[in-house]
């Protein structure tokens, strides 16, 4: 698994490459969680993510909780069919703001800021 981070406007876009599971979920957390100490707009791009297991889902939940606690927001985008199946299995699609494309997600952040 590999994690890349870039700033697109005021949105911090995190892309996860490869498979996120119990073996590397701590690496993921080590990279992402420090970003959430300030109010930040976080978009996690899962386009290159082939697999997410239950610990990966748990990491997503803790990211969202910390982001909101710090006054920021978090969105997900570009899930593959398999990854979305994992989210839907534990009904997490209801608590995450999931967008099909990165552009759509960024626009949603922008509209949210205006509103």
């Amino acid at each position: 698994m590999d994690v890349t981070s870039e700033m697109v406007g005021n949105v911090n876009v995190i892309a996860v490459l490869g498979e996120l599971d119990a073996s590397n979920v701590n690496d993921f957390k080590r990279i992402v969680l420090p970003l959430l100490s300030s109010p930040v707009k976080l978009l996690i791009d899962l386009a290159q993510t082939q697999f997410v297991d239950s610990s990966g889902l748990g990491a997503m939940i803790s990211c969202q909780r910390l982001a909101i606690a710090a006054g920021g927001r978090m969105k997900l985008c570009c899930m593959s069919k398999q990854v979305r199946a994992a989210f839907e299995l534990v009904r997490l699609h209801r608590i995450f703001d999931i967008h099909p494309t990165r552009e759509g997600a960024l626009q949603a952040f922008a509209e949210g800021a205006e509103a």
Partner: protein
Amino acid sequence: MNSTKALERPERAGVHDGITAAPRIIWWLHAMSRATSGLAIIVGLLALLGWALDIGFLKSILAGKNTTPPNTAIAISFIGIALWQLQTEQPRGTRLRVAQVCALVAAMIGVLTLSEFIFGWDLGIDHFLFEDSRSTIGASILDRMAPGTAMSVFLLGGASLLLCRHPNHWSTQVLALAVAWIAFLACLGHLYGAELLYGVVCIGEECEVTSNLPRYTAMPLPTAIMLGLQALGLLASRPNYGLMEIISSDSAGGLVARRVLPAAIAIPTAFGWLNVFLQETVFLQPNLGSALVAGVDIIAVGGLLWWSARSLFRIDMQRRLTERELAVVREREIEIGFRIQRTLLFDYPPRDLPWACFAALTIPSERIDGDFFDFFVHTDRHIDVVLGDVMGKGVPAALLGAATKTHLLRAFSHLIAAGDNHTVLPEPRDIITLANSKIAMELIELESFVTVCYARFDLERGRLVFVDCGHTHTIHFQQRTGTCVLLEGDNLPLGINAREIYNQFETQIAPGDLLVFYSDGLTEARNREGEFFGVDRLVDLVQSHADLEPEELPKRLRAAAEAFTGSDSFADDLTCVTVKLKEHRLPGPLKRDALTISSDLKDLATVRDFVQRIASGEVLSEERVSALIRAATEAASNIMIHAYGRRPDRRIELVGEVFADRVVVRFHHLGMSFDPQKIAPPNFDGTQEGGFGMYIIAQSVDEMRYYLDDRGQNCIALIKWADQPNKRRSHDGRDI
């Protein structure tokens, strides 16, 4: 005991079971008895009144042309009073005393008068009351009552006295019959002019000596009739006892007696008189009359007999018809019972089980059976077989059999409801112990008991668990050794001891094994020499026919038992259940692969590759493959994190198998085992970060099993079935 019997004895002791006295006839007999005694009292008192007031007509009321001796009048009226009092079956107090005194006086008059005749003395009793009763020529025996009258009065008085003491004694009826006969002979004498039958008429100088007999006074016709009526009245006063029992009964005998007896008296009397009349008057040839009378007599008696026979014939026909109808009704009831029993007592053996073949045979001895069997199919690998034998046969035994089955099922459901884990089957020993404690008292009261063999086939563990309640020993043919073993427990039958604790025993069973449950009707079938069929013979038979088709074996056993006894019916109910364990070979996997990984979380990717490699492109759709991969990742990380506590240097063995209809992935490991059922389901509100693993597995595969494998390792097996045909259609895009 005796006092109870005395109390239980019906008041009408002479009446037999099922035959009752006809109430109408009883009423008539009582009425007649009352009328005769009333008439006797009136006539006797009138005669005495005649003497007292010197009224000639009344004096001769009982004597026709002559005067009635006062003693005759006294005796007849006193007997009448006694009988009037004795109408009550058991008179008491004054009533009894009056009856006794009157009867005693009458009997004394009779016996003293007889003694006067025998010893020739004059006791003065003949003129005791009325001096003018003395005849003009002085004291004479001619003023006395006739010897026949005296004898009759004595007997009737005696009979009345006996009735006072013994209300129903047969001797009183014999005495009354004797009097009736004397009186009737006297009447016949008068009718036919045969004077010797009622005495010698001998009055003064005109005395005609007809024989060497002493000269006695005659018994006048009215006296004879009166005495005869009194005798009949005495008989009629006890219509339910002794000789009268048949006459008053509503049976065929009573009917015939009532028809024939009057005719038996009237016909000879009439023809005797006719004979005399004809001989004296019309015919010149003296014997012609006798011949003619005999001829007519034959017709009359023959006709009477035919008439009676016809009545008997009709009654008999009616009775046989009723019997036949009853037999039909009973047969029908048995038939219904038989059908009910087929459904209640005998369950059909389960069919189409993958691992065993069941067959059953039952031959009831009286069509309805005290044997029963049942099959409780819990899962296709857990089946209980119950075979029982109720002591006794027929309907009662069948009912007890049904009750026992009900109690077994009730105990079963009670134990499930009371248990902590509702998916665990109650143990056979607990089922039997509970059922016995419920029905033992009833069975003991009914003086019956039930032998039962309760056996549970547990194919998952390859074991047979059984409880033997005094039943015949189940035969277990083991294919491995080729020999038979008798399965034997050590418990009492149900219904002997309500507190019996039942034990269960276990034995290994394997494919190819055969189990034979049977009732003792089979082993205790006897041949003509009285020899038992026996267990040994049965065991030999099972051993030599163990390779037969399971359905064939019971038929073969029956044929053998029939050949042995030389008959196709048996003295006791005969029941047999056979269970053959099939060789349970599953088709092997189409593809199999194995891989050993470390318990390092880094190897989770290897797990995914392994599952992807073995499962994709085979029987599962892409979507189902990724679901299986998801489940496998969760299972592996569970083992690494929880079973091995994150120690990375342990081993996990992966086995993947592809079958025509499913893919199976197994994880064998030596970490701590954990119970997946104890893990609470997660909540989905976003507050919980972990604990989704088990839930994901359960949602992603069709079946998940935890067990110890044959090397003692923990094993988790994940099973994903091939796509349903309708789901495939949706992939084809038609339904989307």
